[in-house]
């Protein structure tokens, strides 16, 4: 199962390595990661997406995260009502004749073209994992030449 786990940490060098080490030492891959400063510049926020088939191991990792000296709070969004988003940029094959077709796709899914050139266009989308997946599906017809995605970020609902 995919888990979105967020940690509030001291904004210091080495903290990311400590956190990553807890996962890698147990043979777990972090499939997505987003790190940034918070309103308090001495604190950073890290959001990770992890595939963990064994709940017990994930539970252990969360406890281990809490045990790290530099970790302030650990939140597991998996069972919490939350909103999550990722940012995607894709460079696709494009020429002027594709305009109507591309606009149709973008309007339907809620993405936008941030640049249109003679051979390629760059598409930007902010959305959850499913929305981005359906956009990518729809963009395949143009030919996806490059794709970059941010790590997922999440926030709890009321």
């Amino acid at each position: 199962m995919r888990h979105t786990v967020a940690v509030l940490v001291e904004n210091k060098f080495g903290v990311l390595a400590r956190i990553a080490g807890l996962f890698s030492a147990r043979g777990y891959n972090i499939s997505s990661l987003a790190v940034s400063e918070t309103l308090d510049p001495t604190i950073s926020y890290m959001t990770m997406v992890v595939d963990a088939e064994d709940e017990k191991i994930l539970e252990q990792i969360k406890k281990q995260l809490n045990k790290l000296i530099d970790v302030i709070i650990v939140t597991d969004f998996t069972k919490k009502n939350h909103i999550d988003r990722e940012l995607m940029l894709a460079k696709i094959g494009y020429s002027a004749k594709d305009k109507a077709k591309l606009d149709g796709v973008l309007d339907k899914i809620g993405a936008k073209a941030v640049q249109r050139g003679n051979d390629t266009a760059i598409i930007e989308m902010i959305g959850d994992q499913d929305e981005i997946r359906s956009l990518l599906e729809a963009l395949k017809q143009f030919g996806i030449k490059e794709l970059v995605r941010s790590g997922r970020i999440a926030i709890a609902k009321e």
Partner: protein
Amino acid sequence: MKLTGAKILIECLKKEGVEVIFGYPGGQVLPIFDALYDADMRFILTRHEQGAAHAADGYTRATGRTGVCLATSGPGATNLTTGIANAYMDSIPMIAITGQVKSFLIGNDAFQEADVTGITRPITKHNYLVKDVKDLAKTIHEAFYIASSGRPGPVLIDIPSDIQQQEAEFIWPEEIDIRSYKPTSFGHPGQMKKAAKMIASAKKPLIYAGGGVIISGAYHELKKLTEKLNAPITWTLMGIGCFPSTHKLSLGMLGMHGTVYANHAIMEADLILAVGARFDDRVTGRLDKFAPYAKIIHIDIDPTSISKNVKVDIPIVGDAKNILGQLVEDINKVPDTSEWLKTIETWKKKSPLKYHDKKDIIKPQYVVEQIYKATKGKAVITTEVGQNQMWAAQWYQYDYPRTFISSGGLGTMGFGFPAAMGAKIGAPDKIVFDIAGDGSIQMNIQELGTCVANKINVKIAILNNGYLGMVRQWQELFYKKRYSYTTMTNPDFVKLAESYGAVGIRVTKKEDVLKAIEKAISIDKVVLIDFKVEEEENVFPMVPAGEALNRMIEGLA
């Protein structure tokens, strides 16, 4: 007043009450050694950095005070790592200080450079690379606090040599506040109430205690509770000394080489009160068969230890001393354990710890028993790892905490001798005996030099069977006696001891065993006794790996 980083370090160590540092010099710690030259601080120059780390660890285990070791960058630091990992696995508070190449050279593959904070990240409770001399005092104070609080562990401080040379105002931070680190020390009152109720309704309660009891200083509280409940008690290797072995409620050690009756008790108990123990695989045997009838209450300061291996019914997170003290007060109804104790008594009679003693051959168990006799149970015993360790655990009766010092979690051969050295410095009035094997003693034998030079008069008892005995035992039992690379060609240990300036005694006859031990104790020098013991003796009872605790090989008819 402005001081160099090196002097600030020494001042901080004094403020922390450090009385001795174990270590080894080198290029990137020259400023620290220069400051040590006229500092009011005892320094023990070991012969290998691993010896320094184990000595600091042994010092801590014998005294409860945080030990300190010091090494240079690169190879100095990497030589410490086994000792650091060892302390980490057994939750031993220790401070490791390493020199680092000059801060502007870090990452350039400078001479004797290693990424020491990177290397030690998974084997320390926390570590620091100091990049500004102004942070040094605060870092050291934090490091000692982190090492010794909560679930203790080693903390490493890596200090580049230019930081050691730079000057800063020495300001000792009286207060420490780490917002992200607040260990829980008192048990949750609701959980405590539930636990008291569950204990009251038990018929076959069993206390299972670990090293946490010793670390938290809960010896008296545990004794009070055990006696109040009139419940049998067993302990782990790390728990040895947490309760008097000679007490009538004692079942001794459980697990792979535990007593038959302790393991039966686990398998039959209807309630297990686990205190400061972590259900290690050497203790539980086959997990899905462990304690099938028992509800489990688990007291531990570390939430990650709870329900890690065995599902727990009532977890109580906090310090064992506080919680046990509180439980003694909270429990107003105690279970009637008379029938249960009778059953256990029959197990004790039927399957006591035993070995086949012989007239003409020295049994290793016999040697340990004679050490007990000669020291009247008052010595500090350290062990190496393997058969010597298990015999030392089984055949010496420990009645006090901090008298049995052994590498439990990591299982480090070569630990016992340097640990004995540290223990003797911490407890100079005690007799300190390292019970060793002929294999493991050679892993840090160079520390004979340190002991002789500093008059650290420890005693070494080598149970010399000419084998790497524990591995040989496994090869005998599970690999058809194919003794693959477990035979030792040994030096003449007596001559070796003598060449270092220590006293060497060889014992080949049973009737000389006790005399040799008494002689070793009476000589105020480092003494090594080479006991030629039964070569293919096995440690029994034994639970084969992956078997349930009641599937023990008793070894004897």
